């Protein structure tokens, strides 16, 4: 999709954290001059909550993008998962674990479908996951007008609102999922193969990697991450919400976070740590704007500009390195 794939490898991880630090420093100063306080308890907590939701999706998205694929269906998987979880729980703690299991299983099923379409039927990932997303959208639009089901109280109290100091449990879940993904990518055969498939599928195939199996696995894991984000959102909202995924723009924002985090959109280069940096960057900008009481629509304009600018900076740096 871009000329970037022709350029040599780079180490993009620090870049996003430099940007994050700068953003937080400048944000802190501006908010201070405005008479507010950026790092108070409530702002930090809400920043981490925003990051937890987007982060779970983005970590999954990182896996498929690393493999040279893409998942545009995550927003619908999130909505579906909130409904499956909340309707199965129906307000009772007894059904908690089966409900979580079912939501993850349904998500995994969608991921499996995505993966098979991309690998076996060789449908372009953009179209395959867009198509599956539309299938789910039709189901959700047809079956639900508004919130449905009730989340188990225990889940709301734990994953939804429990925190240790300023750190919500959900953010710790994100840390755990990120650590697992990082481990899988850098220490296991699956991870090495996934990066190889994303870098050059033909070379990977010739070196004995089972491309299809690797990519299907990545798609299943990505969808399960989206399902997990759905369970988390259901625990925040207390019920299933048929449009929560699309209204949160989780499909596009998760891809943006991955790319800002330095993972190449064409695949083969990058990692989950950078993605978490990208997520924190987006969440911080959000928090700073909230503190400054910036108009919601203006916030969106700035966010669009920042996404483009961040990626442009990476592309520039990659070009300079290629020239050097």
């Amino acid at each position: 999709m871009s000329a970037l794939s022709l350029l040599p490898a780079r180490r993009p991880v620090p870049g996003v954290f430099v940007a994050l630090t700068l953003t937080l420093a400048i944000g802190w100063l501006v908010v201070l001059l405005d008479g507010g306080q950026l790092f108070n308890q409530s702002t930090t907590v809400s920043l981490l909550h925003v990051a937890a939701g987007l982060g779970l999706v983005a970590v999954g998205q990182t896996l498929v993008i690393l493999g040279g694929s893409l998942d545009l269906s995550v927003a619908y998987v999130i909505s579906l998962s909130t409904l499956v979880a909340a309707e199965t729980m129906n307000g009772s703690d007894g059904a908690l674990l089966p409900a979580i299991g079912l939501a993850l299983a349904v998500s995994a099923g969608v991921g499996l479908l995505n993966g098979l379409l991309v690998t076996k039927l060789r449908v372009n990932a953009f179209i395959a996951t867009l198509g599956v997303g539309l299938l789910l959208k039709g189901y959700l639009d047809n079956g639900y007008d508004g919130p449905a089901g009730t989340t188990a109280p225990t889940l709301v109290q734990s994953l939804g609102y429990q925190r240790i100091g300023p750190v919500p449990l959900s953010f710790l879940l994100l840390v755990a999922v990120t650590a697992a993904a990082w481990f899988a990518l850098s220490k296991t055969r699956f991870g090495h193969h996934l990066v190889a498939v994303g870098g050059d599928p033909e070379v990977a195939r010739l070196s004995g990697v089972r491309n299809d199996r690797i990519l299907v696995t990545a798609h299943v894991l990505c969808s399960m991450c989206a399902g997990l984000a759905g369970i988390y959102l259901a625990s925040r909202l207390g019920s299933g919400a048929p449009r929560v995924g699309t209204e949160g723009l989780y499909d596009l924002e998760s891809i943006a976070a991955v790319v800002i985090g330095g993972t190449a959109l064409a695949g083969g280069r990058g990692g989950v740590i950078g993605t978490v940096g990208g997520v924190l960057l987006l969440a911080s900008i959000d928090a700073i704007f909230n503190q400054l009481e910036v108009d919601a629509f203006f916030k969106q304009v700035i966010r669009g500009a920042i996404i483009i600018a961040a990626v442009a900076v990476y592309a520039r740096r990659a070009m300079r390195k290629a020239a050097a």
Partner: protein
Amino acid sequence: MQTVQRRTLPLRLPRVRPGGVLPILAILAVLLVLVGIRQPDFLAPPSLMSFLGRSAPIILLAAGQYFVIVSGEFDLSVGSLVTAQVVVAARLIDSDPTRTWPVVLLLLVFGALVGLVNGLITTRLRVPSFITTLGMFLILVGAVYLWSDGAPKGGLSEEFRRFGRRAFEDVPLLGRVPYALLVLLVLAAVAVLLMRSDFGRTLVAVGDNPRTAELSGVRVWRTRTIAFILSGLAAAAAAILLGGYSGVSFQAGAGLEFGAITAVVLGGVALGGGRGSVVGAMLGALTLELLFALMNFYGVSGALRSTVQGAIILLAVAVSATRSSSR
């Protein structure tokens, strides 16, 4: 239409050239037969003409998206651009007929400008077009809400709305010919001529292999930027027709980018560029609209539209993918 035959395997059916318009014509014919069985009235000239007029905006968007896709990029900003154009038009015209033409001109300039910015960011700053146009999407939606404080203001003049909703009545044989259909025919002819010109060939070459094109002296960045400008102009034309037909709302263009991409893919254009025709893309859009009309006739719930749309894209692309990969 060229077909490729293999002499070594005489039993094989003649193959359809990938990217050709034959498959989409076949699907279109099947849908027309199905519609004819269920609702023969629909195929009578007047209602068919109205249908074509109503489909004009999405067909134009598909043509615009085709230019970008065949050159190897994406334009995800067209839906939000249409919304922005409609809202801007309503506020600037503010029901004053004398402002119609200046605003139409302004919309075209605005569309071209957004395309130019998309193109330059993608080609000069090397941001993947997926990200560029997604960012543009966020910027346009945010900006248009910001500018109108969350509710569309003003109104379109009757003269502006004429393009989208009026028609030449009492035309012999055809019954009525919507203005939108005439606009579509003219612009479609321009698109076809453009693709037959040197520019068209260059555009396809750029999408097929940018490196080769670059080495043979094509300025890839300029060609792709022009493709984005054409997409912006198509969005402006679509917005003028759509605003006229269905009026002003923040939902005017919602989801149209995916509709246009679906249409392009359905019409046999390869994502990633270099293959497929603009006629195929426009026929793809027509097929999609006909499919939705058919679903109405069969009483399928409107909410299930997207499920069927999803299934159709997957089917169309899977069939063409297995066909081209078994070459």
